[in-house]
């Protein structure tokens, strides 16, 4: 067994044993789905069946909600003595961090699957073919990978576990200021431009296109570029911070 696999199993136990993490990461996105589609959905006029409109956005929201657990878990490792033990034991330095990243991705996949399952139960219909769905899976994985590295960096940079939890709030709020819930052109001035140009909008639009079976190349390129950029910044920031902190 490699160090990374050992660390992944350790982190997976942490997630499974922490009811707050399970609730935030998996149950809350499903609750949001029910709230917006089942409770409020009929009030939104988006030009199509609301569940079809909202599903891609809530898939992204599910990824973001899984992140707060990651930053606090990373911070908790760093602020308690255990990280020094791993360092002195010569556990591969990457393994500690990749353990957190892979755990986050696994949690995110479960949450997205739960959201999609709920969507189908609420009448969601997809015109996407097998390749489109493969594209959906790929983009979900890529987004999860990128935001997980950024979150690991936030967790490492935070001085306390509490600060680490707060650091992910912007990431959790960001989907609401995108085309996730309603189209950007229905928002007020300022917010509208922000929503159009922020990274989550092209990701959501790409997911939406793929699920409709009508993917747009422009959105897809922007989405992949944003993910690659976020992943790179997150990775470099995380590894640099990890080295600096004794």
């Amino acid at each position, binding site marked *: *067994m490699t*160090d990374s696999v*050992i660390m992944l199993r*350790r982190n997976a*136990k*942490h997630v499974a*044993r*922490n009811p707050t993490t399970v609730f935030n990461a998996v149950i809350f996105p499903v609750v949001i789905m029910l709230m917006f589609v089942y409770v409020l959905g009929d009030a939104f006029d988006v030009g199509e069946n609301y569940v079809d409109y909202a599903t891609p956005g809530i898939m992204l929201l599910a990824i973001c909600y899984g992140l707060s657990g990651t930053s606090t878990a990373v911070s908790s490792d760093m602020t*308690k*003595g*255990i990280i*020094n*033990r*791993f*360092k*002195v*034991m*010569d*556990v591969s330095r990457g393994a500690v961090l990749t353990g957190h990243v892979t755990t986050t991705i696994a949690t995110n996949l479960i949450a997205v699957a739960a959201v999609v399952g709920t969507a189908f139960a609420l009448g969601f219909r997809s015109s996407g073919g097998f390749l489109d769905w493969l594209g959906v899976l790929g983009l979900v994985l890529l987004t999860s990978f990128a935001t997980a590295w950024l979150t690991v960096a936030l967790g490492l940079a935070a001085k306390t576990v509490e600060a680490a939890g707060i650091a992910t709030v912007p990431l959790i709020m960001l989907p609401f200021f995108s085309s996730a819930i309603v189209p950007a052109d229905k928002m007020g001035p300022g917010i509208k431009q922000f929503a159009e140009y922020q990274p989550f909008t092209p990701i959501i639009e790409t997911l939406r296109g793929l699920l409709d079976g009508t993917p747009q190349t422009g959105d897809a390129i922007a989405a992949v570029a944003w993910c690659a950029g976020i992943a790179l910044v997150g990775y470099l920031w995380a590894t640099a911070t990890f080295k600096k902190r*004794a």
Partner: protein
Amino acid sequence: MTTPAIEVSGLRKAFGDKVVLEGIDLTVAAGTVFSLLGPNGAGKTTTVNVLTTLIRPDGGTVRVAGHDLAAEPKAVRAAIGVTGQFAAVDELLTGQENLQLMVELNRAAHGKQLIAGLLERFELEEPAQKLVATYSGGQRRKLDLAMTLVGNPRIIFLDEPTTGLDPRSRRTMWTIIRELLAEGVTIFLTTQYLEEADQLADRIAVLDQGRLVAQGTPDELKRQIPGGHVRLRFTGPGDLEAAARLLTGGVRDDETLTLRVPGDGGTESLRILLNQLHDNAIHTEDVTVHTPDLDDVFLALTGRPNVEEVAK
């Protein structure tokens, strides 16, 4: 002569403007307990962090287990184990799972027997299946040390292993440290408790504000300060007067009716002293023996009382 377990020469470390270690030299013979003694903020933890490869020194050379710290950190890490001041345990795993994690990361053979043996030795069988978050301070420290032992280290660093523990847990920890020593393990122990260093250490170095102010065996350190004395208190001035004439070299204090006589407080010399008084019909109210302890050493070396001891 075998290679020393730890050799440190001219070790310096500063954090920004704050100089924490100002040229530390020390040698720890293999198979002994070396205690670094000092108050909070003296630089004990920094020393441990440097010697265990966690932080880089600014200057000086360090060899641990025969390996140069800067050139072969991996070889150093393979030989050592560390139990820090804050228990390095995983709170969201059970005690058993914490040990299992160490077995996996160490690729240790016969993991099951090893874990069962450690749980028994550290009296952790009963809470083994409970999450460590529910453990007492003493149980955490024991689990922490048990986790360190999974890697079978030849040199163990214990950074204030008993700080904050109740007296019973402290005794248990001391017993375990003595057992490890009997197995041939070298122990580098930091402590702010003078009694602990006295009880366990073969050699003690006193660290104060980043400098070693004294080094030696506990007895050597005690000899560095004026010897012990016996304090005799009398019922009246007549007895004091008679005793002072009999025991020349004593320091008398008429106000408290006491006489301070130099002496090591051994039973034989004490018996002779008391017999002398008895034979001369001098009555003593009480007798107290004062051997120099490490508190006296600390005071004599630094000109200040040990802060923690005063606060305790």
